[in-house]
């Protein structure tokens, strides 16, 4: 395999964590909807906590993206 091909393949493989991140984000928001359904009064507080959780989960995707970009642009 050529080096460039292997590099691009590795960059694509580095984005595999997005699978788990997608599952996790879906779980956070399904829990959010459930909580609001049970107790609509708590919507504001739960929304804030949920967004912090979503941002923390997203940062895994960002790490994957950074690794992928490093593989494409930095690795010689």
């Amino acid at each position, binding site marked *: 395999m050529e080096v460039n091909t292997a590099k691009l393949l590795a960059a694509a493989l580095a984005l595999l964590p997005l699978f788990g991140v997608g599952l996790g984000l879906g779980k956070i928001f399904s829990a959010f909807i459930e909580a609001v359904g049970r107790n609509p009064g708590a919507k504001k507080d739960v929304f*804030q906590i949920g*967004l912090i959780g979503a*941002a923390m989960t*997203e*940062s895994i995707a*960002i*790490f994957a*993206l950074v690794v992928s970009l490093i593989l494409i642009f930095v690795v010689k």
Partner: protein
Amino acid sequence: MATNPLHQFEIIPLVPFKVAGLNLAFTNSALLMILTVLISAALMIIPMRRAAIIPGRWQNIPELFYEFIQGLVRDVIGPSGMRYLPLVFTLFMIVLLGNLLGMLPYSFTITSHIIVTAALGVGVFLIVTVMGFVNHGWHFLSLFAPSGLPKFIYLILIPIEIISFLSRPITLAVRLCANMTAGHTVLKVFALFSVQMGIIMGLGPMIMNSMIVALELLVAVLQAYIFTILTCVYLKDSVELHH
């Protein structure tokens, strides 16, 4: 016509200006940044010039933003964090207006460039670190080692905590930048579809595009909110250490 969906992120010098080989041109990015600052300042200053106890229609705008951010800071950092309110409020307004002005046709999204968001993120990180050491001294380092755990867990926990602390500016910057870049690229890709498919068939992508515009407006506001709330969460560490 520019058929490249990434053409919108190009920095174009509007007024070329060079000093000793250093390119100091006035670019579209600089123009949009100045517009962001001017509009956010005007939005705050002009309606508040004749401030009344019972707010009028115009006075409601700054009060809405201010009370929103004030409530956020009070909820997340606590009453002792009110001294950070100007910082958090400024960050929110800059990111929000930078995102929203980028939604105008033919304009430029300043937050889609990683250097802009990285400057904001590194600024927040430096403020959190410096204020943490100012408020707590060397005791601030106990942030990396939560108490009440078995001894051997610290061997794993401390490196993880340090890495997650150091990666905060990266996640702050890349999250905002990646969201803006991806959304705007999708918008332009769909616009390109409707141009290529002609007048009648092109209506499909155009309807889709108008829905994506609505989604992008939501993302623009939501990302500004997330940036602000994460800034508050990080500032909370420097205000009070949890033991």
